[in-house]
């Protein structure tokens, strides 16, 4: 049934087909996701949404190339993903993702030069251009430990975007921020998207964040993660009531599981 629909769409940028992911802890072999399918088009703001334990972060790591699927394949622009690479830049949740021994500017240029993307003056100019985009020009020569959490995340986003990757992978980048900063960062991210129309795969466990950030939302069920639904988000400048309705609908879909669980007990 999918084939017919697929033909009408252009070749997807990222294609995840039947991906089962497993990882080992000291005692157990855990299946994080089971046969997950989805595909992302260019300039999508694709959100992976689900409760903790639905394997959304593991899935993002697999797209990042940090772990190989035991079943299924992940293709980026038709090429199978086998290892991490600068064509898929990660933005992590942790504040320690910046190299503490480098300044803001150096952190961004280091990414550009190390990956062999740009060199010397060109790298520096590109870095400053994106540092400017996230409003951190004044802090370009500051070391990360002097920045606030929100600023650190902005540097990480600038670093990811300066690399101009095929797709930006964001693993709950705002989860460790306070609510006010978080809202501002979401607005800034959308503004940046308006400017450059980059493709982003965004992981979150917040329904409101998913509806606000995403244009398409993949809903995952927990233990192991399976696709529950793939839905379009509401238009950004549309009626707030529509967003609220979508949030309620997603909430019910996630909540349905829990009722069933309760009934079985």
């Amino acid at each position: 049934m999918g084939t017919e629909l697929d033909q009408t769409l252009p070749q997807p940028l990222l294609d995840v087909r039947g991906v089962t992911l497993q990882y080992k802890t000291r005692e157990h072999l855990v299946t994080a996701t089971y046969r997950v399918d989805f595909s992302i088009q260019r300039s999508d703001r694709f959100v992976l949404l689900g409760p903790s334990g639905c394997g959304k972060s593991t899935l993002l790591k697999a797209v990042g190339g940090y772990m190989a699927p035991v079943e299924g394949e992940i293709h980026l622009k038709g090429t199978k993903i086998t290892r991490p690479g600068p064509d898929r830049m990660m933005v992590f949740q942790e504040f320690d993702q910046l190299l503490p021994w480098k300044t803001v500017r150096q952190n961004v240029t280091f990414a550009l030069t190390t990956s062999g993307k740009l060199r010397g003056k060109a790298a520096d100019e590109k870095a400053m251009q994106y540092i400017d985009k996230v409003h951190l020009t004044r802090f370009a020569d500051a070391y990360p430990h002097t920045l606030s959490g929100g600023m650190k995340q902005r540097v990480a986003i600038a670093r990811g975007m300066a690399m101009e990757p095929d797709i930006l992978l964001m693993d709950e980048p705002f989860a460790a921020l306070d609510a006010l900063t978080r809202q501002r960062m979401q607005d800034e991210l959308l503004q940046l998207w308006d400017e450059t129309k980059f493709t982003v795969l965004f992981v979150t466990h917040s329904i409101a964040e998913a509806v606000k950030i995403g244009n398409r939302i993949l809903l995952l069920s927990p233990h192991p993660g399976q696709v529950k639904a793939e839905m379009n988000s509401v238009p950004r400048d549309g009626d707030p009531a529509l967003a609220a309705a979508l949030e309620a609908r997603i909430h019910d879909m996630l909540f349905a599981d829990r009722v069933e669980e309760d009934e079985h007990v």
Partner: protein
Amino acid sequence: MSDLSLRPEIVRELSSSEDFGVIQKELTVFEQLFNQAWLRKSIILVLIAVAWEVYGRYLDNPLLVPTFNDTVTALWGGLKSGVIPDRTWTTIVILFKGFAAGVFLAAVMTILAITTQVGTDFLETVTAMFSPLPAIALLPLALIWFGLGQGSLIFVMVHSVLWPLALNTHAGFRAVSPTLRMVGRNYGLSGLMLVLKILIPAAFPSILAGLKIGWAFAWRTLIAAELVFGVASGKGGLGWYIFESKNQLDIPEVFAGLLTIIVIGLLVENVIFRTIELKTVRRWGMQN
């Protein structure tokens, strides 16, 4: 009965900054001086020197404890005649050779340890075995293997530098956050380049601590080893200078030798390592 919801709401104008009075005020000169660590420590040093001088004069036996004054005179004499700089230089040259060899071996071992499981097991096993073994205990063996001379000294120094440095560096590598590793791999780094560009700077606080411990061990071991068989290849170091002076009952010279060792130790600790610390880990906020 009052209804709690009937309480009036309060919205206030903030007072302007001129009304606050003192927000920030400079400390007094005495407070500022007292905050200088070097000044406080210098005062302690002066007090120790004074106590030494007083005790020396009270005891009045230069063969047991020469006064501070005598010691400084002997030190000055030794410096002027060129004996002490000469001996110190001999010691420092050997020290650098041994230290460099130890650092190199530690680097090789820890890089192997961080990249392979066998390397980890090997490093853990040998450090557990040799780390508690005092370098001096190896001297008799070193003498048989390398004879009287630099070879034996360098051998025991490598032993004293290698284990603490390898242990600290390895612990530092393992403490590097998984996120930073993933960031490095995201840039396409792997293997040795990942170690050089991400792991070494990220583990630098531990590596520096290891270098400091290694330096202290090496310095002590070297002086002790020189005391035992100092005339390495016809030229003795500081340890030998102390030994010689003792044999001739030139006790102020013995003290002058000891003082030189202390001064060099302090210089390396407080100037060299301190500068490195300030320029790196402190600046990066990786150590407070």
